[in-house]
């Protein structure tokens, strides 16, 4: 069992503890922004979720390249685990974005470049998981999934700029002027970013374990 290993168990406990502390800090330790009130608090979850999502997809792309060049299963497992975690966090971005936007922009969805890029990446990864599930020959699926992970990430700047040129009048994202935020907002935000990154690495090691066990079971059947 994964958690029989003491190191993994301690990492899980630390992740849960950090997540709880971070949530308490967001609720009680951060200042209320006058014109946004409680809606602004979601920003401490929304932006770190987006960071982890993009980080996961970036690692999935790197794993894709490495898998295609080395043909080592380890990289396929890392790529799949990152794709799963990335999609989970991208879903959180797509849920928290409209929650924040409804009171601030007056409607849940605006074709804002970052949010749109997230949506398109999310949809591309829906295709990625369909390929993994219904693709047929497993060895071929590994290669095609690696190619999808590569082109999905290479497409990110293209999607971002196309949406930005398409609707330049849109209000910009709150993340844009992060360096101009007061310390009371910036430090909790950076703490949240660290906590989410830590949770990502804990989740990644667990998913890698689960996927490799599943692979071994499938190979033995």
């Amino acid at each position, binding site marked *: 069992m994964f958690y029989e290993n003491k190191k993994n168990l301690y990492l899980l406990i630390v992740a849960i503890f950090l997540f709880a502390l971070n949530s308490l800090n967001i609720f009680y330790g951060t200042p209320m922004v006058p014109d946004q009130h409680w809606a602004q608090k979601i920003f401490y979850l929304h932006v770190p979720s987006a960071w982890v999502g993009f980080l996961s997809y970036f690692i999935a792309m790197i794993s894709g390249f490495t898998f*295609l060049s080395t043909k080592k299963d380890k990289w396929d497992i890392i790529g799949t685990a990152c794709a799963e975690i990335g999609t989970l966090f991208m879903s959180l971005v797509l849920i928290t974005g409209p929650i924040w936007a409804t009171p601030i922009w007056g409607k849940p969805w605006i074709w804002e470049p970052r949010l749109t890029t997230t949506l*398109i*990446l999310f*949809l*591309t990864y*829906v*295709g990625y998981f*369909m*390929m993994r599930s*219904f*693709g*047929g*020959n497993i*060895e*071929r*699926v590994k*290669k*095609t999934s*690696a*190619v*999808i992970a*590569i*082109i*999905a990430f*290479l*497409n990110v700047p*293209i*999607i971002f*700029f*196309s*949406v930005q*040129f*398409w609707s330049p009048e849109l209000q910009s994202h709150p993340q844009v002027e992060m360096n101009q935020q007061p310390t009371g907002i910036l430090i909790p935000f950076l703490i949240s970013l660290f906590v989410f990154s830590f949770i990502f690495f804990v989740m990644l090691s667990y998913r890698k374990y689960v996927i490799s066990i599943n692979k071994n079971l499938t190979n033995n059947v």
Partner: protein
Amino acid sequence: MDLLKLINKELRAEILNKEIIITMLSFGLSIIVIISFTSNLSKQIIEAYAPGLFWLMILFVTVLGVHRSYAYEKEFNAIDLILSAPIDRGLIFIAKALSGFIFITLMQALIVFPYFIFLSIDIDVNFFPLILSTLLINLTLMFVSNLISGISMRARISEILFPVLLFPLISPLIIAATNITNSIINQAPYIEWQVWIYLLISILIVFGLSGYALFDFILEE
């Protein structure tokens, strides 16, 4: 030389069967009829939406045509014969994309008149930039769709996976295509829409190079 032989093979297969062009043309005409029935709106509204609807129709037609071109290879196991030939596999991708470019351009030349007649659209434009930009859009469209079709070709549910993967990845191209055609129809100066041409060229380079480099991995057993 290998590239020319491969393009020649695609063209000869199409001249013998006429499957792709006829399929694309009849499907395109059906879409125009459906658009006419569902958009019984004022002339101004139709003219405003005409470029977007046109590229939407081309996208659907492309899905059908490109999928057919790969399904044909699969049906007769022709792809294995091509793979056994001593040629660069990246060239197979380029040959498929270039022959697809010829088919879609031919199909567009035939369908553009029924499109304007059925939807009662009057346009008074400089055809030179319209034709040049359409050729660039077609070329980019074919590079992207052939890469994705190659990825999904051997999957168990390739006919579903292809559009599911293609549509999110191709959205920047559709945004660019619609904006370019709209700008030309509205006689906007080139400086206002040159950004979209640069975006198209970026997509062409990214997907062209990715396809050329990755097609070997996509096709290998």
